[in-house]
């Protein structure tokens, strides 16, 4: 009897851990433009909380430092202030195609975030091309989700999926 509350607590902890363990899958498409010279876009993908404060940088695809500033929101929110973080999450730029990313529900320090409302932010800028910004709200809790974001010129269709726990 004495142990029952502890057991309950353990159970709920396990449930919370399981919820955090189901990642958010992000399918992202980079379109192939029909006209003009092609340079691979710079792309950043990150999570912001409901007050639009950056929580977790998922990935940034870039080359030279000169042009990172063209990812205007990324640069203002994260890039300019935290070079080690940017370096740690940097990947090579990518050509047209579909890409899979995921978020494990952790912030930049590695701590699990609280359940609640978040924004998945994707920004792409291409030399001689345009710039796209997508801010997709989603709920981070035990429930499953599937969200499709309509394609733009620099960011093609984006699909967010997450399983239940």
């Amino acid at each position, binding site marked *: 009897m004495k142990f029952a509350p502890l057991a309950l607590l353990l159970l709920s902890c396990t449930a919370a851990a399981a919820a955090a363990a189901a990642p958010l899958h992000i399918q992202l498409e980079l379109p192939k433009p029909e006209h003009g010279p092609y340079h691979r876009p710079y792309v950043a993908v990150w999570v912001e909380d409901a007050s639009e404060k950056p929580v977790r940088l998922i990935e940034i695809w870039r080359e030279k430092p000169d042009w*990172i*500033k063209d990812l*205007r929101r990324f*640069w*203002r929110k994260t890039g300019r202030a935290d070079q080690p973080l940017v370096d740690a999450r940097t990947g090579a730029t990518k050509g047209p195609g579909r890409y899979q990313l995921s978020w494990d529900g952790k912030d930049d320090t590695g701590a699990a975030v609280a359940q609640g409302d978040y924004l998945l932010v994707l920004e792409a800028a291409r030399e001689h091309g345009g710039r796209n910004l997508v801010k997709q709200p989603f709920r981070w809790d035990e429930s499953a989700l599937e969200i499709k974001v309509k394609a733009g010129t620099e960011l093609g269709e984006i699909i967010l999926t997450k399983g239940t726990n």
Partner: protein
Amino acid sequence: MAIAKLTALAALLFASQLSAHTLTVVPSHYVQSKTGSFVSVDVSASNMTFQADKGVGLDAFYVWLPDGSKVKPAAVYQGKRKSQAEVELATDGTYRLELGNGTRYFTSYELKGERKRLMANKKERTAKLPQGAEKVVTTQGNSRALAFVTVNKPSEAVLMPQNKGLEFQFDRHPADIVAGEEVTVILLMDGKPAAGVELDLSREGELYRNEPERKHHITDSSGKFVFSAPVAGRYLLEASYQADIASELADKVREGFTLSFEAALP
């Protein structure tokens, strides 16, 4: 020669407060993501915002580095329509680019019904004013044109008010001004909030619009005003303040500045 140039610039700075010509300092980039690069800075007196009309001398153009030290630009050129300064951005942080001449004194008067002006303060004017001068008023004038450029992480040193003349405090760093977001500004005169400062906010492209879409503001009793940039782009904030003063050197003070900045895409 140098003095003549400075005097001419002072006259232009002063005149720009009175006439429609506005001095602007416009860097090629307000934000950079790489150190060791340069910005080219256009300096011009113009009627329409950022539509260069007249190049001006850059003897009084200085760069304040992120550590607060003051240096000359790497190179300057005075063109007919605009002048240019090359500014090296060797380190991270925020730079202030400023054209200004410090405080100048002008005495205006009427002689036989004609308005005239000479450069003298109240102490000097007695010896210089002609016989029969009327309606004598001495103005202490100061006018600056400035802009900020930020490389990587923004810094604060060059934003600190000096508690001298007309200055401003934004509720955010200039590199954080974003289209559609409200910005609160406090205008300071000699370090104290200044009510009644007149401000004009304009943006580029006036030549290609029927309506200039300028916004006029006046600071409230706490020296505050609030603006928001409707779209991303380059903006010019013009501020002017005048008041009667009790001073040994002047009857009036007239201070002004123009600040160019960009409102970033959200």
